[in-house]
């Protein structure tokens, strides 16, 4: 097992390294950071040359990659276009984004698993039909439409009705928030509610559909029939014989979908004007700020590869039939 994990870790690191090369080439070759400066006719040619030199644009790509990569290995993500270091910005925005993403992830898993089990147990009934309809409906709505709908037609009328801000629609925290951590909690919750719901609605659908079908598949297996005919209580059959088996494939699917969650966070942050990683990245890409774009892409690549690795290991831990060689 340990040997397998180590080998898998090594191959993950290789994938990550290849990904850094790919990402670097993509970012470097698809834009010019000095585009705006060059478009301005009043910019003296010397300024452009100096900026090019400062941003290492006059060096060969291989040198620039090596400079960036060795910097990353030393924990240095470089400077952005305004010459402030990227790393503290990354961590600041990460805290904001993870606040929403982690909660949404946990809640979505709980909701998806319970709805999937419920739908499978009541197969063909009205509950199953409503759950299936709801999952397909939310699978079809783009994230920005869900977010905007909740914001425009739930939060704003609600705030108007109560005369003060019950559900915040803009920002991750009120700009005038004061007091210590405990006094800030109600304000934080008001700001977090809608983005978290939006993100949950964006991801729970496919997991619910998948959970439902794996439960249905497991229910018809021979060992479940045997367990039932032995006279084991339906509750125990469900928990021990069906769920335990049906959760294994779902775990991997959920872990692999983490990438999609980050994409959803970009949109949710835009709709609710959160100063999270997604908006930071959007602005960075818009200003053709290479180091910000690279830092975000590196961050997502690390997370996605990490979750792939976790999915593989979890698969082995949950399913004793799998043997590692």
């Amino acid at each position: 097992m340990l040997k397998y994990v180590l080998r898998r870790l090594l191959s993950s690191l290789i994938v990550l390294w290849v990904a850094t090369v790919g990402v670097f080439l993509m970012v470097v070759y698809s834009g010019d950071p000095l585009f705006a400066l060059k478009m301005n006719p009043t910019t003296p040619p010397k300024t452009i040359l100096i900026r090019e030199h400062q941003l290492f644009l006059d060096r060969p790509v291989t040198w620039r990659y090596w400079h960036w990569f060795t910097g990353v290995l030393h924990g240095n993500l470089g400077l952005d276009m305004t010459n402030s270091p990227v790393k503290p910005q990354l961590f600041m925005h990460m805290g904001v984004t993870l606040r929403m993403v982690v909660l949404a992830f946990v809640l979505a898993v709980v909701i998806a698993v319970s709805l999937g089990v419920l739908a499978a147990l009541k197969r063909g009934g009205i509950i199953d039909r409503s759950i299936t309809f709801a999952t397909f409906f939310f699978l079809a709505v783009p994230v920005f439409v869900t977010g905007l709908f909740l914001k425009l037609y739930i939060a704003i009328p609600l705030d108007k009705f109560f005369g003060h801000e019950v559900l915040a629609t803009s920002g991750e925290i009120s700009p005038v928030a004061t007091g210590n951590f405990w006094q800030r909690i109600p304000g934080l919750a008001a700001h977090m509610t809608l983005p978290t719901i939006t993100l949950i609605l964006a991801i729970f659908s496919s997991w619910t559909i998948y959970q439902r079908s794996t439960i249905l598949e497991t229910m018809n297996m021979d060992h479940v029939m045997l367990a039932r005919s032995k006279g084991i209580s339906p509750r125990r059959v469900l928990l021990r014989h069906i769920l335990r088996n049906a959760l294994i494939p779902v775990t991997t699917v959920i872990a692999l979908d983490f990438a999609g969650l980050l994409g959803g966070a970009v949109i949710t942050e835009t709709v609710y004007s959160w100063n999270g990683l997604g908006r930071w990245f959007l602005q960075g890409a818009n200003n053709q700020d290479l180091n910000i774009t690279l830092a975000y892409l590196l961050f997502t690549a690390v997370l996605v590869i990490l979750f792939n690795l976790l999915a593989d290991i979890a698969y082995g831990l949950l399913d004793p039939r799998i043997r590692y060689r």
Partner: protein
Amino acid sequence: MSVFRKNKTQGVKVDTQWSIAMRRFRRDKLAMAGVFIFFFILIFAIVQTQIDPNGWSTLSLDFARPPSWHHPFGTTTVGLDLFSGCLKGALQDLIVALVVSTMSMVIGTTVGAVAGYFGGKLDAILMRFVDLLLVVPLLTILIVMANLFAGKSNGPLFIALLIGSLSWTYIARLVRAEFMALRERAFVEASVALGAGNWRIITRHLIPNAIGIIVVNTTLTVSGAILLESTLSYLGLGIVPPAVSLGMLVQEGQGAATTSPWEFLFPAGLLLLIVLCVFAIGDGLQAAFDPRNARRKKSA
């Protein structure tokens, strides 16, 4: 290709996989409703943009009017007819989706077929490349690419080619897995024994057998492409004026959503309706091609 029509062998009609699936598909009411609404929107959009090609660019003095006989979807804050805008946007979205799904189907099937059939080093190289594309989320790659090309060539076709060139990986993986299973079957061995070449085995024996997977997932690519394109357009990175798309209309309508809700609700609703239709079609196709449903009258 023989799978696409009924074979007439000496005057006897033979059921092909395709004809059986299509017969089952036609019995699926939800899927057929999806087909009708989808093509209704498509044809209506084509006709409308032909009859009134300047509908979305003619300014009027009707600012932010609610839906009426003259403006079925109302007008926008600057006085444009939203009905023509929505249909033009829908048509644009559907064209993008068509290009993307065709590209995904062709590239995905080719890569998957080559990797799955030949295996070995070629398979390893192709699949590592696919893995690499999956490391960074598709939306993120699209944001970088669209952003860095911004202002130069952001035509609708450019966005379609960009999405299409990156979204074939899913089909490629599924086709590869299917081909790896199929190539071990006895009928392939029989073809080899009869002297069939690789090309003939792939096009005449393996692709027809994997047609269900290819068709179903191409349909899903259509909905995926519409969602991706509208998201990019919402962020202002996809389709840009003078072209119009539903995501762009939603983005423009969000500011006026409390005073003139039609500006937000009609484009968003039409977008949702189109994607739901594609889902219904995809679901119906999946059930129709599933051999486990062969003897059941209604799909589960």
